């Protein structure tokens, strides 16, 4: 039997391109969950919200959706600040993060989804960018632009965040707060501000990732839930809170899904990310009570 070279090559390409995009979707979780220990399972809900906002504005004004989302990211930033404020006041301060915080974010995810259904209905929406129909061909390899453009912007965004965290003062403060917030407080840093900023940043990335999503595939309100497993799988596989780890985890997941989709059918794809997550959680070495 002839080795399906073209099929395998294209599966790899699609997997890598998707992987870059998955990294953009998950970098926010690496910050909010990996670094701040906030279990924001509503994160995919914000991604979908970003998709829909990019959709409306782009539809009305004819501007490229990714450009729209980048321009509107300050709005998501502010939204993130507001949500963190509430979370902090109601849960973190009282030491109730685990159960109540989870239920809180679940509620937010839920409300976001249902509100979107009420406004937009359950039909799939998609966006046609200027490049959505174009595909570069290189021998047997296909590079669909609708995957390539989001991939490039995703990588730029993730690398940008990594540089910000490693190089700037505020970025380093975020990394420090993840490790030892008491020490930071003793040094006079307003840790609440830092955490709020970091969380807001994570929501901003979600908004932008939403635009990537709707360029890549049609979107409807319920698909947010399907991505919960994916973003947390990437974060866990990537070692929790490491941006570089997030990239690696994202590529692993992208390739796994791409191969599953190509050889077993696309309806099995969600099971891949969740299955990998379950496996990672079940067999991840951990202390007696977690990390």
């Amino acid at each position: 039997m002839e080795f399906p070279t073209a099929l395998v090559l294209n599966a790899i390409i699609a997997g890598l391109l998707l992987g870059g995009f998955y990294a953009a979707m998950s970098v926010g979780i690496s910050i909010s969950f990996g670094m701040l220990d906030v279990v924001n399972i509503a994160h995919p809900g914000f991604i979908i919200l970003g998709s829909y906002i990019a959709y409306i504005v782009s539809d009305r004004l004819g501007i490229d959706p990714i450009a729209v989302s980048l321009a509107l990211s300050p709005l998501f930033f502010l939204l993130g600040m507001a949500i963190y404020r509430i979370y902090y006041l109601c849960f973190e301060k009282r030491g109730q993060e685990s159960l109540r915080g989870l239920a809180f974010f679940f509620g937010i995810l839920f409300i976001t989804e249902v509100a979107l259904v009420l406004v937009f209905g359950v039909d799939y929406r998609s966006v046609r960018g200027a490049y959505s129909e174009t595909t570069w061909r290189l021998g047997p390899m296909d590079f669909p632009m609708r995957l390539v453009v989001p991939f490039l912007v995703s990588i730029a965004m993730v690398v940008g965040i990594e540089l910000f965290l490693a190089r700037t003062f505020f970025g380093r403060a975020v990394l420090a707060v993840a490790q030892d917030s008491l020490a930071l407080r003793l040094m006079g840093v307003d840790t609440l501000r830092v955490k709020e900023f970091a969380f807001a940043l994570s929501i901003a990335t979600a908004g932008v990732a939403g635009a990537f999503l709707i360029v890549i595939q049609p979107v409807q309100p319920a698909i947010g839930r399907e991505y919960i497993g994916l973003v947390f799988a990437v974060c866990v596989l990537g070692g929790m809170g490491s941006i570089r780890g997030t990239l690696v985890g994202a590529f692993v997941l992208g390739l796994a899904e791409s191969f599953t989709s190509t050889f077993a059918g696309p309806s099995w794809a969600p099971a891949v990310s969740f299955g990998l997550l379950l496996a990672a959680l079940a067999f991840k070495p951990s202390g007696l009570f977690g990390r």
Partner: protein
Amino acid sequence: MSHSRFALVAFAVAGAIIAASPLVPNDYYFSAAYTVLQFVILATAWNILGGYAGYVNFGSAAFFAVGAYSSVFLYKWAHPPLIVMIVSGTVAAGLLGLAVGYLTLRMRGVFFAIATLALAVVLYTFVVNWDYVGGARGAYILQPRDLPFGLTRYIHVLYAAMVLMTAFALVIARTIETSAIGRGLAAIRDDELAAECAGVPTLRLKVLAASVSGALMGMAGTTFPYYLSYVEPSAAFNLSYAVNSIAMPLIGGMMSWIGPLLGALLLGTVQQVVQVTVSSEWNLLIVGVLLVVFVTLAPNGIMGWVDAWKRRKK
């Protein structure tokens, strides 16, 4: 009140409720009551792991669907009597709870919660691809024509089964809550490390709670195919089950068996009204908002208010 006396009272009340069915003039009542009781069982079951032990399960729909789909499977395969379907679905869901619990309860509660979300999606994918039970197209389940006890409508049989199952769930929940096992679960909820160091076998108790919780959630789903007559995955895996099984115990109060009952009766009835007068989307939105409002402002729910008021009177 001892365990056996409570069980007696519960089943006596159940019997009385069932016996009173002929007095109800409106058939819609049975339909609505079936749905509300479904929620009572789900909320009570969820609370055994969520409220008693403090581990949040986002995948209630998965366990519910296991109950429903095991009934579909049995219907297609051997068409056994209803009681066999109920027991099988309950056991199947319980085994799932055991397996998932054993694999994921050894880690932080947060990871367990995420794993349960994952579970729901994975199971949904499997069911959608399983043609024997209808897959994405769904399956038709015909209600039997011969009815026991001279009843005239099958909905009455389903209603009676639901009332009995509710009583059963409440008895199980209360028995666990007031036993040494319940105390152990509460210790786990308050401080798992301290509980372990006090001699509580935390993993075993958590897995037990997850199995019982899962089993009862599955039990709630076992008669669902007969109720709907047509089952397809999005009905069994309905988002409303996931959010309600969390919202109802939260609003009613998670510390005891009364809370979920109260929350389910209240919220369930409200939803029946809203669904009929407005729409099911608005219905879900209201539940979501109530969930967020209660979790931020009144995390101990209605029974929490009651307890605080009682303590202030002392």
